[in-house]
């Protein structure tokens, strides 16, 4: 880039050769907005119960088929910085709420798309930002004013199941929504503390298994570890098990400080032999003495130790992963013991039943720990016809779990199927009339952008999208009720209250806030400098 000084000599501000690529001003903004729109358009087809999936092929040729916005974006190997921001956006929604990761991106894309025409009118980007900010405030206020509360308790969780069903409706599991929604809600309720409105998510374990169909997914009151007992002849079932959890290997000790042990006489050789033999005996004796009936160990076993365990009738599992160990410790109330010598009866965990089960014709085995003394740990065993279905099933269930958790934390809901978006849009249109100045334009743009989600929903469902949305708009205004939405599954009614389609209030507010924030941030950028040819 060249500038000329007062005497007419050129001087260089930024070296404008091949190494740098630079876009400024409105060009930069447009490039950014286009990039964001590309990502949003890509996600649009995944919205709603009839949305489509994407196949992602990773670096090693592994295939993932999914409909989960966060997963698609995360695995998409994005390079464009603006697109990267949108990936972060959906990630943020995923971390906070766990659901609605697609809609948030689509909405942000729409906000930017609308701002494009405002920019062309010559409105300054920071004015647009301000207007969006205000519009977002109004929309959130409106959301809070139209929200409903759902009631549930441990016995009657039907309303929670309905919410989980809405979340599952757009995923591949939707054939079995009834069952899987029920499982998800039960799992969350099992670990939830309703009084404190707290859900400990790490107590729910999702384990996948190919074979069978998604419909055979089951909830297990306990923990599954994909391992088998260390010796084939150990009993396959232990009732009223007392579990010792060890993080030390059944091997002779290996001091961490460097050492050498020299043997130069027969006597020493004999001594060493004796010590070795005693080690194994001592280890197993200590475990037996503590009263344990099952041993779970994070490390490996020596052959001799393994046999001694069998002889002492101590079924044992080796190489249990660290996370599993922690989970089991929580579930059974056991203490994780790092040294054999510190094992005491008090530190043992209790479980009603420990079984080794095999599945299918292959000899894959897993160990099921059931009826733990602290029943608060559950496992959802997801089954499916192939690996990809199982993985997608796991992701879908995770979303449903998140929705249920959010409802337990905050039982306010808004109606889905695009109903809230349309209602907010109507409210914003009304409000815009009372606002002076340029902001009015931005607020109207915001209200238009809100319609992007219902429009995508309708067009994915094979409806005439604009017609369907305007029809709902009219209906909402006429009857002044916020629960009319797009009838995606052609059930014959647009009343989302009757269809039991709803989202959490928290999730929706979060969506609005995050998307607005992102749009503002992208609008603010007026210069892109990046080196080229360096890949």
């Amino acid at each position, binding site marked *: 880039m060249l500038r000329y000084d007062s005497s007419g000599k050129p001087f260089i501000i930024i070296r404008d050769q091949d190494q740098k690529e630079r876009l400024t001003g409105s*060009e930069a903004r447009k490039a950014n907005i286009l990039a964001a729109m590309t990502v949003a358009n890509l996600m649009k087809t995944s919205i709603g119960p009839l949305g*489509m999936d994407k*196949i992602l092929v990773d670096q090693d040729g592994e295939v993932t088929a999914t409909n989960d916005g966060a997963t698609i974006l995360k695995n998409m*190997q*994005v390079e464009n910085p603006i697109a990267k921001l949108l990936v972060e956006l959906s990630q943020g929604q995923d971390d906070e709420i766990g659901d609605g990761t697609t809609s948030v991106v689509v909405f942000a894309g729409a906000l930017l798309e609308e701002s494009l025409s405002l920019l062309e009118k010559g409105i300054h980007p920071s004015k647009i930002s301000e207007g969006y900010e205000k519009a977002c405030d109004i929309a959130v206020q409106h959301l809070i004013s139209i929200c409903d509360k759902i009631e549930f308790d441990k016995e009657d969780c039907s309303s929670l199941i309905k919410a989980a069903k809405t979340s599952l409706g757009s995923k591949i599991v939707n054939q079995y929504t009834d069952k899987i929604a029920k499982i998800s809600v039960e799992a969350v309720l099992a670990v939830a503390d309703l009084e404190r409105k707290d859900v400990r998510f790490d107590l729910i374990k999702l384990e996948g298994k190919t074979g069978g169909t998604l419909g055979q997914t089951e909830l297990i009151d306990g923990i599954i570890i994909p391992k088998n007992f260390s010796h084939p002849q150990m009993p396959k079932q232990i009732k009223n098990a007392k579990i010792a959890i060890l993080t030390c290997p059944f091997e002779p000790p290996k001091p961490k400080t460097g050492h050498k042990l020299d*043997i130069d006489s027969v006597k020493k050789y004999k001594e060493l*032999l004796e010590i070795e033999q005693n080690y194994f005996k001592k280890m197993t004796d200590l475990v037996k003495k503590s009263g344990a009936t099952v041993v779970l160990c994070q490390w490996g076993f020596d*052959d001799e130790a393994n046999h001694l365990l069998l002889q002492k009738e101590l079924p044992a599992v080796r190489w249990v992963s660290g996370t599993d160990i922690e989970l089991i410790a929580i579930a059974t109330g056991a203490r994780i013991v790092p040294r054999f010598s510190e094992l005491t009866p008090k530190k043992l965990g209790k479980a009603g039943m420990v079984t080794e089960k095999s599945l299918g014709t292959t000899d894959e085995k897993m160990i099921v720990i059931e009826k733990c003394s602290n029943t608060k740990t559950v496992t959802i065993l997801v089954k499916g016809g192939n690996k990809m279905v199982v993985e997608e099933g796991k992701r879908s269930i995770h979303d449903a779990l998140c929705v249920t958790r959010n409802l337990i934390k905050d039982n306010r809901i808004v109606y889905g199927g695009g109903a809230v978006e349309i209602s907010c849009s109507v409210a914003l249109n009304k409000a815009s009339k009372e606002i002076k100045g340029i902001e009015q334009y931005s607020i109207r743009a915001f209200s238009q952008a809100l319609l992007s989600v219902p429009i995508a929903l309708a067009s994915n469902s094979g409806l005439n999208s604009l017609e369907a949305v305007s029809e709902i708009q009219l209906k909402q205004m006429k009857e002044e009720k916020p629960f009319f939405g797009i009838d995606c599954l052609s059930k014959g009614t647009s009343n989302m209250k009757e269809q039991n389609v709803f989202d959490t209030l928290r999730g929706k507010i979060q969506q609005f806030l995050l998307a607005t924030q992102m749009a503002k941030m992208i609008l603010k950028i007026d210069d892109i400098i990046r080196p080229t040819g360096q890949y």
Partner: protein
Amino acid sequence: MSEAYQPARILNQGSTQEKAEGARLSNFVGAIALSDLISTTLGPKGMDKILQSPSNLLDSTITNDGATILSSIQISNPAAKILIEISKVQDDEIGDGTTSVVVLAGELLKEAEKLIHKRIHPQTIIKGFRLAKNIALKKLKEIAQDHSENEEDLKKYLKKIAMTIFSTKILTPYKSIFADLAVESILRLKGSTNLESIQILKKTGGLLKESYIEEGFVLDKKLGVGQPKRIENAKILVANTSMDYDKIKIFGSRVVVNSSSKLAEIEEEEKKKMLRKCQKIVDHGINVFINRQLIYNLPEQFFTDHGVVSIEHADFAGIERLSLVTGGEIVSTFDHPELVTLGTAKVIEEIMIGEDKLIRFSGCKEPSACTIILRGSSKQILDEAERSLHDGLAVLSQMVKNPKTVLGAGCTEIIMAQAIEEAAKETSGKIQIAMEAFARALTRIPIIIANNAGYDAEQLVSELKTSHYKGNTTFGVDVMNGKVCDVQELGIIESFLVKKGMLLKASEATEMILRVDHIMYSAPRQRGMN
């Protein structure tokens, strides 16, 4: 105004994507190509494939087992990968029907492709397919016959099923012999699905039909040198311990000596240690000692002196099976003979099969174990025979648990297809078209089977359809004679589980592929950078 109005590139360099129609097309093409590739192996007159390994050109496999073929071809198309995956799961879960599941999925996708050309939305197709699948499943459950009550009956049916399975494999000419082998060995398991206690030993030489069941257990090992070749009333200790040189496993220890005499002393001590261990083993009062690891000359000689027969280097699976069969536990320490359960066998003897010497354990504690000895003229034939036998055994073992059967030879497919067509008549809307398409895909299976046999398939299958409409619902295609006839009389019976697995998995995979409208490929991992 240079870059601003160009479509924004958002993916990494090297990454590519396919959208909407393009993505769908590439999915269909990949999946259909795969199913076409494998469809020629379907049925009793299906053809085999040669699979050559990329690393060693001499190492080739000849097979018509769907799972084997699919797992060895290298494919980059994502939809084709999904199909390979379902055939693998079908293999793991049920053991047979690995080809049909892929072929059915391929046919379903072919039908779906036509519907998409007619501008029917994929989600509508999925809805129709789901409905059709449920109807087919219901019908399948209805027509399945349960044989759990009568044991004699069950045996008869098991044999028929085994014959049906083997008739599509290399074992066809001797299917009756092999069906007997399979049924007998499965019935020994008494309801367990643990196929590990059935051992299949392959020995080249002789003919396939000379294969037989060996009572008890045969271990492909030799007895120690100079030890008796026949032991009666054997007491067996099964062990996993090192019998070569028994290192002390204290880390960091090493032997340092300053004179050769001391070295000799230590060596002597080491020997003594080994002999003490041997003595302990002998003290268990055994006459046979089997170890997973090597046995060196010194201990072997000690055992021979004390009248104990030693067998070394039985591999891990062999050891586990042996301990299962003889009822002894796998031992690694020898200080408490009173606590160790010993295995027993009436007779252990060395036998000859072909030119190889093997050890036979008969009269074992666990009568469920047996060994099937396969004979055949080449390695390839034996391998294929083993795969076929394994398919049969897997299905039979599942059958014993769930003894339901359906008719084979395309009969069941036609019944399901007609049930769907009936139901489609009462369904209005585009879903109807999708349901009809599902029914058509099901009828394609008998067509392919007949085609592979070299008959006028369309003619045969339409004859078959008419006879079903007339009420002869047990009719199917007899590919041996190229006629439509009563399958019940022919005795072509298949397992309900295989058919159910085929139906469910194929439709699940189809649905998954249909739902996709966008494929994104990451840039391939850079190789050889360091």
